[in-house]
C-alpha cells in the first residue's frame, strides 16, 4: 500500500472518479496546466483533457454558478476555490441556488456538485489565506459540509462527496496537505458522509474536532496519557452537516466531559452548534461544563502572530484538565 499525503490522496480520488464516470469534471482557477496552486489536480488535464479539466476565468461566483448549470444538465462538477478566503463570491450561488434547486424544481433539477477548497491556518500565508469559516457553509440548508483530517479520510470522503446526489462543500485543511503521509489503499473506497469517527478511545473526557485540529487533539490526548493525567477520547466530526450526533454526543455521554476544539472565531461557529447539541442531548451526563478551545473573534492574524490564534496542544491539555478537575 502506498504512503500518500493528503494532496496525493485527493488527486488520486479525483483521477479515479474521473476515470470511473465521464460526467465528473474538474474546474477552477489554475487547475489545469498548473495542477492547482497546491498541485492537488496535478496530472488531471494531461490524462482527461481540457474539456474535463477546465481552467476557468478568474471568477468564483461564475465557477460555482456554471457548476450548478452543468450539474443540472447531467454533469458532476468538482469546482475548486483556490483558497476558502476567496470563495465568498460563490456563497450567493450556494445559498441562493445550489441548496435550493432540488426543492425549487420539486425534485426535477438536482445539483450533485462538490466545492473543494483549502482552508485554515498554520502555513504562514498571506491575508485571506488562513481562515476557518466552515460554519457559514454548514449553516446552509440543502448543502453538506465535509472536512477530512488525514489522507485516508480525504480520499474516501471526497469519493463519497462526488457520488453524493446533492451539493457538498469539501474543506481541505491545507496545513495537513503535506504534513503527514499514511497508507492509502490504491483501490477506490467511500467513507460515508454524515459519519463521525472515534479516532482515539478514552474514558475520562471527549475531545471533539475536525480538520487540522484532530491532530492537535490526538497529540494532546497522547501526551496526557503518557503523563498519566487521563485517557481522553478524540472524535473526528468529519461531516459538520449532517452532524453525526450519535457518535459525537454518544462519546460525551460516555465520558461525561467534553472540549470542542476548532480554529474558528468562536461566536456562532460550528463549536457553538456542538455546545448546543451537548446541552440538548448530554447535559445530565456531564460531570463538568463543556469547554471550547478556538481562535478569537478577530480577523485571523498575519503569519507572525497566527500561532497565538490557533489552538495548540498545551492549551487543549489545559482546558481538558479543567474539565477533569472540575
Amino acid at each position, binding site marked *: 500500500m502506498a504512503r500518500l499525503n493528503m494532496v496525493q490522496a485527493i488527486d488520486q480520488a479525483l483521477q479515479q472518479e474521473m476515470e470511473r464516470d465521464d460526467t465528473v469534471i474538474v474546474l477552477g482557477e489554475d487547475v489545469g496546466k498548473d495542477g492547482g496552486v497546491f498541485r492537488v489536480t496535478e496530472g488531471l488535464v494531461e490524462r482527461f483533457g481540457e474539456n474535463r479539466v477546465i481552467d476557468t476565468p478568474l471568477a468564483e461566483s461564475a465557477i460555482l454558478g456554471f457548476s450548478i*448549470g*452543468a450539474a443540472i444538465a447531467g454533469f458532476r462538477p468538482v469546482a475548486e476555490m483556490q483558497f476558502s478566503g476567496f470563495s465568498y463570491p460563490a456563497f450567493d450561488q450556494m445559498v441562493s441556488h445550489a441548496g435550493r434547486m432540488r*426543492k425549487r424544481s420539486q425534485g426535477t433539477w438536482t445539483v450533485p456538485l462538490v466545492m473543494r477548497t483549502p482552508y485554515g491556518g498554520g502555513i504562514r500565508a498571506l491575508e485571506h489565506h488562513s481562515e476557518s469559516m466552515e460554519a457559514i457553509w454548514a449553516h446552509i440548508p440543502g448543502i453538506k459540509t465535509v472536512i477530512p483530517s488525514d489522507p485516508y479520510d480525504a480520499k474516501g470522503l471526497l469519493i463519497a462527496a462526488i457520488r453524493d446526489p446533492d451539493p457538498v462543500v469539501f474543506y481541505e485543511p491545507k496545513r495537513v496537505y503535506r504534513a503527514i503521509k499514511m497508507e492509502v489503499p490504491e483501490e477506490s473506497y467511500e467513507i460515508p458522509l454524515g459519519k463521525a469517527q472515534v479516532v482515539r478511545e478514552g474514558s475520562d473526557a471527549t475531545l471533539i474536532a475536525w480538520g487540522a485540529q484532530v491532530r492537535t487533539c490526538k497529540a494532546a490526548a497522547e501526551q496526557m496519557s503518557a503523563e498519566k493525567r487521563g485517557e481522553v477520547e478524540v472524535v473526528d466530526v468529519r461531516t459538520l452537516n449532517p452532524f453525526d450526533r450519535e457518535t459525537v454526543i454518544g462519546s460525551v455521554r460516555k465520558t461525561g466531559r467534553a472540549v470542542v476544539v476548532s480554529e474558528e472565531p468562536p461566536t456562532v461557529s460550528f463549536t457553538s452548534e456542538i455546545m448546543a447539541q451537548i446541552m440538548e442531548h448530554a447535559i445530565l451526563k456531564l460531570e463538568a461544563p463543556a469547554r471550547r478551545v478556538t481562535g478569537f473573534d478577530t480577523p485571523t492574524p498575519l503569519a507572525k502572530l497566527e500561532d497565538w490564534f490557533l489552538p495548540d496542544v498545551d492549551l487543549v491539555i489545559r482546558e481538558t484538565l479543567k474539565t477533569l478537575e472540575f
Partner: protein
Amino acid sequence: MPVTTLAQFSIERVEVMDHQGNVDESLMPDLSEEQIRHLYEMMVLTRQFDDRMLKLQRQGRLGTFARVMGQEAAHIGTTYALEKGKDWLIPAFRETGAFILWGTPLEDILAVNAGDERGQKIGEGVRVLPVSIPIATHLLHATGIAWAMKQKGEDAVALTVFGDGATSEGDFSEAMNFGGVFKLPVIFLCQNNQWAISVPYHKQTAATTVAQKAIAYGMPGVQVDGNDIFAVYRVAKEAADRARSGGGPTLIEAHTYRLSDHTTSDDARRYRTAEDLDPWLEKDPIPRLARYMEKQGMLDEDGVVQVREQATQKVADAVKAFEELEPADPERIFDNVFAERTPNLEEQLRWLKFRTGEGR
C-alpha cells in the same frame, strides 16, 4: 509611434414592423400564418392571465408577483425561436409568457404565486428552470447548461432572460465572460424595460445601449424593438442558429417598457410620470400584431373577440383548478431538501408532526 485604431464596433437595432402593423418584407422572418396566429394567441393569453392574476392578488388570493404587461413580445417571441424539449430556458421572474408558451399549466403558475410549492414542478421533458429571483445569478446556470450541451454534442441552445437592472450585477459580467471565453451556445436576452423597480435605465448604466456590452465579452450584441414580435423572433432565431452551429453566444437587448408596476407591492406613480408611460401604451405589442394580422386578412374584429374569449376561458379554467387544489401537506417542507432526509430533518419532522397533531 503612431496611434492606431485596433478595433471599431457598431451596434445595430432591428425593427421589422411599425406601430401600424406594416412590415419590412425584406426583414420579415419565415413564419406561417398558423405560427403568427399562435404567437398572437399566446400573447393575448399571457395578457389576460396577467390581468386576472392582478385581480386575484388584490383579492388576497395570490401573493406578490411581477406583472409582464407590455413585455409579451420580448420573451414570447424569443422563446418561440427555440425548440421546446431540446433547448433550455433559464428565466428570471418576468417571463410568464415563455412558461405558458412551453406548456406550464396556468394553475401551476397560480399556485407558485400563491406560495404553494407544488406549482414549482417542472413539466415532463421540458427543459425550463424555475423562476429565479436573485438578480442575474441564474445567467451563470445558463453558461453551465450551455457548456454541458456542447460537451455532450447536443446542438441545444440555452436562453437566459434578465432585465436592465441585472446588467449592473457582477454575475452578468461573469456569465457574459464565461459565455465568450468558452464560446457557449447561450443567448443572453435582456428585456430592457427601462426600470429596475424605481431606478430608470440612465441611472443604471452610462452605456447608450445594453447591446454594446456584448463587445467587451467578444460576442455579437444587438438591440431589437422588443415590442415587435417579428423583430424579436428574427434576432433570436439568428442567435439560436449561430449558437447551434458553434458560433457562440449572443446578447440581445429587447428594448421594451414595463407598462405595469414592478410588482403588485409597488406603485410606479411614485417615480414615473404619465409623460414617460403614455407613449409606450401606444407601442403595446399586442394591438400592433393584431393590426398586422388585420391588414393581412388573418384576423377581423370577430377574430379578436374570439381569441380573447378563448383566453378568458382558459384562465377561468385554470383559476378553478387552482382553487380546487387541496391544501399542501406540511410534511412537504422536508421533501426535496436532499435526495434522502438527513437525521436532523427526520427529527425536525417529528416536531412538525406534533404541531399538525399527528405526533400527539
